[in-house]
Structures are given as C-alpha cells and as structure tokens.
C-alpha cells in the first residue's frame, strides 16, 4: 500500500477547490489597496511643498501692480538685483547676525544643560526639566509681551534692538537645543564610554573621542534648528526690536505696500541653503560607502 510522491501530490491537488484567476475589479481593488499609502504620502508631500514652490515660482515674476500675487511675466531680474534694495539687504544681514549669535550661545549653553540633565542626578532635576520646557509651551505673544515688560522695567526701553532681540532669541532657542541634544544623549549607550575607559582612555579622552563625536549629530541638528527658529521669528522679535528691522519684520511691513519679488528670492535662497545643508552630508555618506 505504498504510493509515490507524485501520486500523493495528485491526490492533494484533486482535493483542493478549483483555481480561478482574480477578475478585473478584484485586481484593481487590490492595486488601490496596496498603493493607497503611497498616494497619501505623495499628497501630504505636495501639501507641504506647494507653498514653497509658489514662493520660488513668484521670485521669477515681474509683478503687474504693487502686489506679487498674479503671474505676469518671467524674469530673473529679482535674482540678479536682490541685494540692490538696501532695506532687504540690511534686514537680512541683521537677521543673520542675530541668528548666528543666538545659535552659538544657545547651542553652547543648551548642550551643557542637556549633559547636566541627561547624565547627572541632582536635586531639582525634574523642576529644571520642566522650566526648560516652559518657553516652548508658552504662546509667543505672551512671551514677547512679558519680555518687553521686563526690558522696559529694566529701563532698557531706549536701547531695544540687536541686543534685546538676541537675548530673547537665545532664551527660546535654548529650550529646543536642550530637548534635541538630550534625546541624543539618552540614546547613547553608556557601555561605549566604559569600553573606552577599559581601553586606557581617561575621562577627558573618553569624552573627546567617544562621547562628543557620538552626540555631535544631535548638536548639529540643534544648531540648525536654533538658526532657523531665530531667523524666522516674528512675534517675539516684533516686541523686543525697538527700531531694528529683521527680515521677517521687513516682509510683514512690506506686505501692506506690496512684497517685492526680491523677498521671494531671499525665501527661496534660505530654502535652498537648508536643502544643501541637509542633503550634502547624505550625499557624502553615499559616495564614501561606494
């Protein structure tokens, strides 16, 4: 009573229900279901980048009237003439100067705070954690007006400008730096530092060779974040600026009398710079791998 494998297979196949190719609707249905996520992803990306594309597009426009809202004519005039407008130039310059100082100071202080909170147990750590979070949770309008009150109370009303804006920016940037760097420190395996110590590295060498290089990506990310937050800020800046005009304030002011295409050029440039900063390391990494 032995049967061969072939016979066994025949029997098994005969016992199965007959095979049918799926119909047109079944296949369409399946295609939609498997591609739905991609469709939504593409839609979400479009939603995010459409405004940026409009900004770039209208930087090549020659406005028909005061307002740069309707497409009139293609031109690269705005791109070639972008720094000819003194108002734009000085506003961008001021914004960059503030952003550079605010970024540097907030990254240094924020990183030190992040190490303190992330690595050490001390009294009041929980409270400090909460305090650091506060500026992010407070509405900007509230913070801007309180800062102005503070500066006025401190009799700095006459000297509002670069200094006060920078101090205000440092204050809210620190929170973001701490949160970003702390996340990186939390993800750091402390056994790596133990391994370094085991391999004859003293505390300082361990920090320089292991801890710092591993936390560095977090610090760089924090710096980029701080820079763009500072460069971009309008509400708090508006309260603390006095007579100074940053780039966002210039755009806001220009809005009433018509924003020149040059403003779009600056916006497009910022976008391109951000893109380059993010993409170049990726490309370098890919090239190195091959």
């Amino acid at each position, binding site marked *: 009573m032995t049967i061969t494998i072939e016979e066994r297979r025949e029997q098994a196949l005969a016992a199965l229900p007959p095979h049918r190719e799926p119909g047109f609707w079944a296949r369409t249905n399946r295609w939609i279901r498997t591609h739905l996520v991609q469709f939504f992803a593409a839609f979400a990306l479009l939603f995010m980048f459409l405004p940026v594309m409009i900004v770039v597009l209208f930087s090549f426009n020659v406005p028909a009237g005061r307002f740069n809202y309707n497409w009139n004519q293609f031109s690269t005039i705005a791109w070639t003439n972008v720094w000819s407008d003194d108002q734009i130039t000085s506003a961008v310059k001021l914004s960059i100067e503030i952003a550079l100082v605010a970024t540097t100071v907030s990254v240094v202080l924020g990183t030190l705070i992040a190490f303190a909170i992330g690595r050490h147990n001390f009294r009041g750590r929980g409270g400090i954690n909460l305090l650091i979070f506060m500026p992010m949770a407070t509405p900007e309008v509230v913070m801007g007006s309180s800062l102005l009150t503070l500066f006025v109370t401190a009799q700095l009303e006459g000297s509002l400008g670069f200094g006060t804006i920078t101090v205000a920016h440092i204050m809210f940037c620190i929170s973001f730096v701490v949160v970003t760097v702390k996340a990186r420190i939390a993800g750091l395996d402390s056994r790596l530092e133990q391994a*370094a110590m*085991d*391999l004859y590295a*003293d505390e300082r060498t361990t920090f320089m060779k292991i801890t710092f290089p*591993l936390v560095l990506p977090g610090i760089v990310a924090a710096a980029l974040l701080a820079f763009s937050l500072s460069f971009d800020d309008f509400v708090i800046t508006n309260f603390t600026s006095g007579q100074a005009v940053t780039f966002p304030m210039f755009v806001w002011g220009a809005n009433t009398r018509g924003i020149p295409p040059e403003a779009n050029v600056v916006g497009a440039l910022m976008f391109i710079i951000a893109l380059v900063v993010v993409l170049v390391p990726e490309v370098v990494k890919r090239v190195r791998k091959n």
Partner: protein
Amino acid sequence: MSEQTTSTAAPVSTSGGGADLHIVDVTKRFGSFKAVDDLTLTIPAGSFFALLGPSGCGKTTTLRMVAGLEEPSAGRIVIGNEDVTHKKPYKRPVNTVFQSYALFPHLDIFENVAFGLRRSGSKDVRNEVEAMLELVELSTYARRKPTQLSGGQQQRVAVARALINKPEVLLLDEPLGALDLKLRRQMQIELKRIQTDVGITFVHVTHDQEEAMTMADTIAVMNAGQVEQMGAPMELYENPVTTFVANFLGQSNLIKGELTGKTGGDASLLVQGQRMAMPTARVHSERDEVWVGVRPEKMQISRAGTAVEGENSMAGVVTDASYIGVSTQYLVKLPWGQEVSIFSQNLSTEGPLGAGEDVVLHWNPAHTFALDASQDADAGAEKVEGDE
C-alpha cells in the same frame, strides 16, 4: 590606504602572558542588596576561568569590579603583585569583551581595534592592528563600520580590540550571549584556541553551563554572591558538593537518605529502608541526614527481577519513556512516590521499556554522592535559558 601589507606585519606575541588574579574578601552592596558577598578567589596566570551562575548571582558585578567599572564596598583586588582595588579602569592591566560588544559605532573596524594602542602610545599601531585582524580573520573588513558586520564578526572585533593590548587578564562578559546556537559553538572553540595561543588569563562570565564546561579549565559556580564550588568541569559535574551545583550543572536525582556508618574508604547508607554503599570521599555533609545523589545517565534501568550484584539498586515503575534517538529518557516512580529521571543509551535491540513496566534501577556505588539534607533539593534547578 592599502590593506595588502599584512604579510610584513609583526606576529602577535604568543609567549605566555598573564598574571594571577586575586579577589580577596570582596563585597559589593547596591543599597541594602549584597550583589557579591565576601568573595575570595584566586585565578592562576594563564588559566581559562569561568564564573558560572544564574542571572543576578553576582558574576557580572565581580567582573566589573575587576575591570574597575564598579568599586568594591569591601575587600581587595590584586593583579600580579599590584593592588588595583581603587584604580581607575584605564590604569588596570585588564581589558574587557563586553556583553553586546560595545564597539564604537563612529569608528571603523581598524580604529576600533587600534583604540587601546593609540591610548597607550604604541609605535607600530598599523602593523599590530593588521596582525590582530589577521588572527581573527577580519583583515578585509578593516575599513567597514561595526554595523556593517554580522554578529559573529562583531564578536571577533570585540575580542581583537581587547586582546591587542596584551592585558594581564582578559575579561569576557557573556561574550557569546547574542549569537545563535550554532555560531556560539563555533566561537567557543575559536576563543579556546585563541586563549591557548596567547596564553593570557581569561575570566569568562556566563550562565550557560555547557559553554563554561566546553571552554574553561576551572569553573567557579556562583550563587547569591558567593562561590558554591570551584574546580575542573569534570570534578564539578561528577562530584558536586551542594544541591545548587548538582542541579545547576546538569541534572541530579536527589533521594532522602541517612548515613549509617563509615568504615575506611566506604560509607554505608540507608535509603528508604534499603542498604547502599558509597565512597566516603563523596560525602559532603556534616550531618547524617543526606540527599543521596545520582546523575540520570549513571543510573541503569532493567526489568524487575534482574540480579544486580555489588551495585546500589531500587525498584520502581516507569511512568514515562521518551525515545530521542541517541538515548531514551525515562521517568521512574519510586515506591514512596518520588520520580527520578534516567538517561539510558539505546543498547537494547528490543526498544525502550514502556510506561507501567516494573523495573529495577541500579548504579555503581562510586557514582553516588551525598549532600547535606538541610539544603533545598530544588536549588539551582530552575535555569533560565537565553539572554539576561
């Protein structure tokens, strides 16, 4: 950078190295918990020593104290003639292979292995690293990052990174825990070979008794911060002195009995009304109340009525027989209700005995051991396999 210069590389030193490691009255408390309790061990230079025990027995804490990553609450740690108890990790002549390797993710394999040499200011980093990578057969991977290597390769990098510094003592913290079974067996042989080659003292922490027995020439079985027994693998297995060792290292059948007398080298026992004999040297109890122990593979199983002269024997009924090819595992119920297990080689041509059959169990008196009956007969029996 060329990687083809390994032929000119200096060979790694194969001369005997290492120093005695003394752990003297060491205690480590974490709050009110005693992780290591008044531990004293001497590990001779050049030996492959295993600290074996279940998770939480204090073996890893002991290793970390030797490495300098924990400070003892009391006691001393001496390497060679140097007291290192309170020295920083980077001032000790030891290196560690960490449990999950702890390779530096931002450095390539070459720089990982070179890390220790660069710190100690070696003059010939390049040749030494290349020779070491050759030893662990990873020369072609020098410029890869750790994440681009398989688990087994990462493990070898971790060994190379520690070994290249020619420490007096190499510490291995569950070094094979993250590998699958087949690779683990392969690496056990590999590590043993490397240890024989370099002659450095290896201290190996593991919860895997088979791993410890395969690799180590001396094993210390740890439990609750203390050493239960120390010796060669065979000595521990054949002649355990506590119920914990009897159960943790393999399996044991422990039956209540009483010591009735000692004449010369022989001791006599009374087990549930039956007289038995055993060597006095294998009695590890101050009291007469004892656990009479026999390993399952030392017991032989025969049909009831078989004459067994000169052997210890007892009657029973088979309750379960599992045929597993190389052997059959029986569960046999004894008249007083206790069940014992027997591993029997399949030498009979008739096939295994079936459940319900009356049998007689018998064994050579020299395979009997006796343990203090005040100890828990189940101590060490609940092993947890896998990672801690």
